[in-house]
């Protein structure tokens, strides 16, 4: 217990330091900082779209990864984990080299155009860095399912899609929610890949972490206040997700 609480304390300490160093007046000032609202709005919009994309494409992918025994899918599993270990700035460069004007897939675009420096680029960067967290969690959730109940349902004549929607999906929901929360948190904090691939323009590509860094260049106190705004938003969402994911288990009893 002693060792465990030491780590918990260590993880909480920077947040405590940030809160302690930011008087209430500064926090209120932070809320009125000209960069904060466009950035907060952009962060909420882009991370929501990112989450929808990650969950709707990631769930079938995770299901396939969990079910398949072929070596090819094991290779795919390793590949989809890679973005989690690539440093974000490198991920940004990689995105530029793939989807930039001179990128590998530049032939997809009209000449001289590219997705770079747009809100879509922000979402692409967020999906790239955050999807592995959802896929990982969802895959292990599907792997943990009781095979017997699936086989029984199939022998009773349920079609695969019905088995998926009525048995597998409901049973995997806690794992999916946990993965979605992790993935969303990662996309909210995303900085390096966004800066490299989407740039930094208020209202268009400047998400909250970029606004914090921009404020940091001129005024540390404003940056602290903005960081606190980010932490409050993240904390609120994570608490809601926890209570939602706890609800189905409570009903089981």
């Amino acid at each position, binding site marked *: 217990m002693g060792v465990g609480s*030491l780590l918990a304390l260590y993880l909480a300490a920077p947040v405590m330091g940030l809160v302690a160093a930011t008087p209430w007046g500064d926090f209120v000032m932070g809320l009125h900082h000209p960069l904060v609202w466009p950035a907060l709005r952009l962060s909420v919009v882009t991370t929501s779209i990112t989450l929808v994309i990650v969950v709707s494409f990631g769930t079938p992918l995770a299901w396939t990864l969990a079910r398949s025994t072929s070596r090819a899918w094991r290779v795919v599993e390793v590949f989809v984990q890679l973005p989690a270990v690539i440093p974000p700035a490198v991920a940004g460069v990689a995105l530029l*080299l793939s989807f930039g004007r*001179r990128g590998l897939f530049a032939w997809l675009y009209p000449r001289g155009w*590219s997705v770079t420096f747009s809100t879509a680029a922000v979402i692409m960067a967020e999906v790239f860095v955050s999807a592995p967290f959802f896929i990982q969690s969802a895959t292990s959730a599907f792997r943990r399912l009781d095979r017997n109940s699936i086989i029984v349902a199939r022998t009773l004549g349920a079609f695969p899609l019905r088995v998926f929607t009525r048995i597998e999906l409901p049973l995997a929901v806690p794992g999916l929610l946990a993965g979605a929360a992790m993935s969303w948190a990662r996309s909210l904090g995303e900085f*390096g890949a966004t800066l490299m691939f989407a740039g930094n323009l208020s209202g268009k590509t400047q998400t909250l972490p970029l606004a914090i860094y921009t404020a*940091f*260049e001129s005024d540390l106190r404003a940056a602290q206040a903005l960081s606190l705004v980010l932490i409050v938003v993240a904390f609120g969402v994570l608490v809601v997700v926890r209570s939602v994911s706890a609800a189905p288990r409570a009903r089981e009893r």
Partner: protein
Amino acid sequence: MKAFDSQRPRSSPAARRLAKPARRSIAALMAVCLASVVLALGGCRTEKPKPAPPPAKSAPAPSKPEQKLVVFAAASLREAFGKMADEFAKSHAGVSVTFNFAGTQEIRTQLEQGAVADVFASADERHMKALKDAGKVEMWSVFTENEPVLVVSNEQRGTIRSLADLPLANRIVIGVEEVPIGKYTLQILDKASASLGKDFRARVEARVASRELNVRQVLAKVSLGEADAGIVYRSDLGVAKASVAVVTIPSELNVIAKYPIAIVKGGPSPALGRDWLSLVLSSDGQGILQQSGFMALSPSVVPH
């Protein structure tokens, strides 16, 4: 911890009971210290590995206090100061020079939070003034100047051949106003508006695709062809020279960046720090700076 225990091999049970919570609180304290270091370095740019500044007071005085020089310097000085260290080693055998290269604002924050250094070389007079006012540095003087230039992607080098052509670019990247290069860029655009047409700044800003957080980001985007043009310091061109076209900004429209240097108060080796300063200001030091693209020091510079 081990030394602490071995000094008291037969402590009473009461003492042991006392020691446990003490140990726990020491561990907690360490965690908090670590956390505050992390906070002080908050948001380090990932591409710049930097040594953590030594803790302020806990380290015991070294037996040879003058053998290590700690230099904090603006990121744009990395190449020039690296060469400077080789030169310094010739006259100071056995002295190790430790660098911390980062954005000037980051270094200012680190020094304000108690990081220990002997010398601070800044890319901006404003941050140096703030540190002087806070009593963190001694008298400072400008040691070099850096010239903003226009960089153009290879695709656009035929189109954008002078500052006046800049509005022809589809995508322009500049520094964000909060960083020195961004501030100078806007001043240049304002000056240009006076001679190239009132709406010049507005026409350029309409084409701005991104306001980058540092010069390297501006340069990376232009050299990858992602942006058509940007404004960076001449000293930053380095190896990127091959992948961009460099357009000089007319001197009457340009705003030159002044780089001040100072001895940091409370550093472990102030004498070595002064030696570093004299090397930087010497003709050898100035030669190294000019090789890296910095400007010759104008004679009007006086210490502040």
